[in-house]
C-alpha cells in the first residue's frame, strides 16, 4: 500500500515528510492541495487536518498529521532500512529529538516570519513589515551562531550521522538559499554551517525531491 501525502510538493512541511520517505525508500503518492485557493481550509480537508494545515498522510487505516510526527513515525517503522534517522541508541534518539525541537521552536518561527514578510506578502501585493523581518534576521543570526558552534564539534546536528535533526532543516534552508533573496549569507558566511548544508543538500534523496518539485 502506498502512503498518500497530502500537500503541495513545493511547501516546506510536506517536503520534510517526502524527504524522509525518500531516505527510507518508502513508496508514496503526492495528493496536491491548492494552498493559493485555500483548499486546506475547506471542510473536506479539515476532516483530515482540523487545523487546516499541510501535510497530512493516509497509510491504509492510519491517518496522521504534523510533519515532525509523521517523520518520527516512518523513521521508527522503517528503522531497519536506510539511514538510521533516529540514531543508533535511545540516547542518540533523544539528541535527535532535541535538535528537531530546536528547529521547531528556535528556528522555524523566525524563518517563517521572515519569508512571510519578505516573500509571501509582497507576492500577494501587500507590504511586508521590514522592521519585523530585520528583527527576525538578527535573531536568526544568533541561532546560526549556536549551530556553527555545534557543527564545529559534530559533523551533523545530533552526532556523526545524518538524522531527522538535519532533515527537518532542509526545506527552510533551501528556501533561505534560493527564494528568500539576500539571506544566503546566514549559511555561506559560517564555515561549519556551510559545510553541513553542502553535505545534507547533496544527498540523493533530497536531490530526488528537488527533481520531483521541478526546481
Amino acid at each position, binding site marked *: 500500500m502506498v502512503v498518500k501525502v497530502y500537500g503541495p510538493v513545493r511547501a516546506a512541511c510536506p517536503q520534510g515528510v517526502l524527504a524522509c520517505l525518500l531516505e527510507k525508500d518508502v513508496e508514496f503518492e503526492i495528493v496536491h492541495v491548492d494552498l493559493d485557493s485555500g483548499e486546506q481550509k475547506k471542510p473536506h480537508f479539515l476532516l483530515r487536518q*482540523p487545523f487546516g494545515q499541510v501535510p497530512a498522510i493516509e497509510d491504509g487505516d492510519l491517518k*496522521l498529521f504534523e510533519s515532525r510526527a509523521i517523520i518520527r513515525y516512518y523513521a521508527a*517503522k522503517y528503522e531497519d532500512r536506510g539511514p538510521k534517522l533516529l540514531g543508533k541508541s535511545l540516547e542518540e534518539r*533523544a539528541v535527535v529529538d*532535541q535538535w528537531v525541537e530546536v528547529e521547531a521552536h528556535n528556528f522555524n518561527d523566525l524563518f517563517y516570519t521572515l519569508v512571510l514578510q519578505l516573500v509571501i506578502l509582497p507576492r500577494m501585493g501587500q507590504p511586508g513589515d521590514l522592521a519585523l523581518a530585520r528583527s527576525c534576521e538578527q535573531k536568526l543570526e544568533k541561532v546560526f551562531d549556536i549551530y556553527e558552534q555545534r557543527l564545529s564539534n559534530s559533523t551533523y546536528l545530533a552526532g556523526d550521522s545524518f538524522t531527522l535533526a538535519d532533515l527537518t532543516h532542509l526545506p527552510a534552508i533551501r528556501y533561505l538559499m534560493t527564494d528568500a533573496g539576500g539571506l544566503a549569507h546566514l549559511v555561506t558566511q559560517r564555515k561549519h554551517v556551510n559545510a553541513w548544508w553542502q553535505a545534507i543538500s547533496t544527498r540523493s534523496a533530497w536531490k530526488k525531491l528537488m527533481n520531483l518539485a521541478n526546481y
Partner: protein
Amino acid sequence: MVVKVYGPVYGSPKRVLVCLIEKEVEFETVPIDLLKGEHKDPDYLKLQPFGTVPVTEDGDYILYESRAIIRYYAEKYKSQGADLLGKTIEERGQVENWLEVEAHSYNPPIHTLTVQILLFSKLGFTSDQNLIKESEEKLSKVLDVYEERLSKSKYLAGDFFSLADLSHLPFTHYLVGPMGKEDMIRSRKHVSAWWDDISSRPSWQKVFQLYPPVF
C-alpha cells in the same frame, strides 16, 4: 546517579517533572531564577546554548527541550509506571501527532498569554491588549478542535493518557488558575472533563505541591 532537572518552578520544566513521577524515576532539581537572568549565565549556556529551561543532567548525559526529554524518559522507562507512548508504533504515531499539536498550535498562544498577563504584571510592564485578544481567539479556535477530538476520544492520542495530554498540564494550569480564564475550559464539555481527568492525576498533584508555580 539521580537525574537533575533545572528550573523546576517554571512551566516547561514541569512537563519533565510530571513525566518522571509518572515513570517512577527519582530526580533532584536545581533552581534557576529567570527573573535574575540566571538562564543567561555562561555556565548555564554551556548546558543549554539557547538559554531556556529545562535542562536535564543524568550523569554525563545532558538533554534540553522539554518534549525531547519527556520522550526519552517515557521510552527508557517504558516498562514501569504509565505507558505514555502507547503500545504500538501506530499508537506512538498518534501521541507524536498530538504532542506536535500542543507544541505548534496550543503552546504559542497560551505562552503569549502567560507572558503578557502573568509575567508582565509581575515585572510591572504594560501588556499589549491586542496581542492578548488575538492570542485568546487563537487559543479558542484550538480548543474548539480539541472539543471535537475529545468528543470521539477519551484522551488526545486515543483511549490512553499519554505525553500528548501531559504536555498541556503546566500552562493550562496557569490559564484556569492565575489567569482567571477557566471559562475557556469549562465552556467546552469534553475539554472540561479531560482537564479534570488529567489535572487530578497524582503526578500533577505532587508536582504542584513540591514546586508551587511562580504565578
